[in-house]
């Protein structure tokens, strides 16, 4: 594989299940060594796309390649050159840590001489050095996930697919997980990761936003944020959900959504909107504590892109 060939290519990739179009003509390229993020709600088509790229599912139409191999005809070569970690925790819970590592060393046909070295490496990155004989089922989720990642890259693949690898993990473990991903990319691995955590998306070099099977935006996190042109107001009130309810149909308001405890409101014109927001809240008996214009987060970006694409996010 040469540097000139992109690590991952998708051209009009489509997958249909019966009447349902899970992935709808999705095209993109991922450069070698990049961390490429796939962002979108559940059911947006992220997992299906990843499965097609990992050689687990045939596309209905369109084509793609991974590490220079065609996804429709060379899935065996692809499997030798990628690591894959699915949404579900998928090591053998009834095997010990060392037995799991040995098993996947076997699956990837690692040469005998390198097995011990790679096993020690995997134990190290999972933070499980000295605990090789523990039954995997009994480990905390964060450790399990790092072990699963370690097992998925025992053969040092050039491309790594991670399908929502950190779902259900606490923030601290999530950060450790991402430190591990950074180590891998420094060594030249291309990482293709899907997530629905917006904070995680910030770690990515580039982000693809998916909704209802379609790719609705693709850019760096910073530029995606810059794309949001409408002013964004952050409101603190005594009742967030009621505030969203009250402002949703107000003229001049494009979108109102909860953002943590606060409410984010995208508006057409700041001055006019501010006036009507204040009067509407008073009308409804809601108490406004603060109102300020803020820079859009990735979540706002996502909401804005979905609106621009003319749809509502699925969930």
């Amino acid at each position, binding site marked *: 594989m040469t540097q000139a060939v992109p690590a991952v290519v998708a051209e009009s990739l489509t997958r249909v*299940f019966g009447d349902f179009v899970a992935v709808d003509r999705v095209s993109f390229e991922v450069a070698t060594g990049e961390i490429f993020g796939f962002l979108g709600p559940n059911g947006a088509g992220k997992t299906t796309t990843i*499965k097609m790229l*990992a*050689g*687990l*599912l*045939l596309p209905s139409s369109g084509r793609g390649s991974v590490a220079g191999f065609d996804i429709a005809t060379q899935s*065996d070569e692809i*499997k*030798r050159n*990628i690591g*894959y*970690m*699915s*949404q*579900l*925790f*998928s*090591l*053998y*819970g*009834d*095997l010990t840590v060392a*037995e799991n590592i*040995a*098993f*996947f060393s*076997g*699956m*990837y*046909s690692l040469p005998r001489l390198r097995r011990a070295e790679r096993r020690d490496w995997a134990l190290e990155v999972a933070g499980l050095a000295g605990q090789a004989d523990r039954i995997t089922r009994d480990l905390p989720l964060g450790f399990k996930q790092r072990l699963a990642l370690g097992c*998925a890259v025992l053969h040092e693949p050039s491309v790594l697919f991670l399908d929502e690898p950190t779902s259900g993990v606490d923030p601290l473990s999530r950060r450790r997980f991402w430190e591990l991903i950074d180590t891998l990319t420094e060594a030249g691995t291309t990482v293709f990761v899907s997530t629905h955590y917006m904070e995680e998306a910030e770690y990515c070099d580039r982000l693809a936003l998916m909704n209802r099977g379609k790719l609705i935006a693709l850019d760096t996190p910073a530029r995606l944020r810059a794309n949001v042109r409408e002013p964004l107001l952050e409101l603190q009130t005594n009742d967030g959900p009621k505030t969203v309810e009250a402002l949703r149909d107000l003229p001049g308001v494009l979108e109102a959504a909860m953002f943590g405890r606060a409410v984010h409101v995208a508006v057409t014109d700041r001055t006019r909107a501010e006036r009507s927001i204040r009067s509407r809240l008073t009308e409804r008996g809601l108490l406004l504590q603060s109102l300020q214009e803020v820079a859009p987060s990735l979540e706002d970006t996502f909401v804005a892109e979905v609106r621009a694409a003319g749809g509502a996010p699925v969930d």
Partner: protein
Amino acid sequence: MAFDVFRLLAIARKELLQLRRDVRSLILAFLLPLLLLALFGYAISWDVSDIRTAVLDQDRSATSRAFVDAYRASGYFSVRQDLERSSEIDALLTRGSVQMVLVIPPDFSERLGANRPVAVQALVDGSDANTATIALAYARAITRDYALETQLQGRLLQPPITTDSRVWYNEELLSRNMIVPGLIAVIMMIVAAMLTSLTIAREWERGTMEQLAATPVTRSEVVLGKLLPYVVIGLIDVVMCAVLGVWLFDVPLRGSVLLLMTLSTAYIIGSLGLGIFISAAARSQLLATQLAMLTTFLPAFLLSGFMYAIDVLPKGLQMVTYLVPARYFLVVTRGIFLKGVGADVLRVQGLLMIAFAIIGIALAIHFFRKELRT
């Protein structure tokens, strides 16, 4: 797609490790065969002896008592009660406290003495048709022998034809001699059903199959790697059943152990392949288990000649039995155990076993999808 023996062995090793830690599987693999063997060896028997019998002797003569003694002496009938009145019969048979009532008419000795024909009545509880049929046959034989003896009255008369019968292979006509070899076929089907419902479905359920699917391991490596430990377990079960059968139940093992093991291996490979094929086609654990029971275990139990002789089955079912591999394997085990036959006699069955193994594996590999559907 290169075939890699080491990947196959890695799968087999993993299966063994999982099996070792799974009590449920261990019980199924090693305790269930013993349980079935004990159950069939001790408890269930199709041998009919000691048929509970009551006698209504209206003649009450030395002759009639001698006649009843002939029944007693046969060993097939255990005369429990002497009745006074015919009105007692109904209640006894209804309650099931006796299975047969022998009624001797008042003029029994008188007519016999006068050399005139006389009929005794045998009333049998037909609700257990099997026992009833056998009881009647025994009753007829005993009565006929007695009648013959009476007619000859000690004279030596050579009848023109006599039957000099001798039972071969199962000399004492013990049903456990048939059961133990047959049970081997059934037990191996259970091991096969276990593999399908526990190991394949579990991988789908826990998401490990998806992880496996993303590695370079091939379908044939997964299928054969999973088969291997269970073939070994199946063979251990065969040895266990054979040893216990011979030691505990005195079942003769007259033929070649090597031939038995060879054909058993082929048979269990076929059964396991069939099981994997079913679970791959069904995908859901519950459905796979039920289908496996329905298509492997039950036919082996009911349609192989193990439980019921194939000749007594309805014509339609008899045709179905030709598709039941256990039917042929039963010929193999009974043949080797009881008759001591060799490969020359079992050539057809042996070839069928090998064909079954090849078809089973081919089906399993072909239908075992590594690719995901969702």
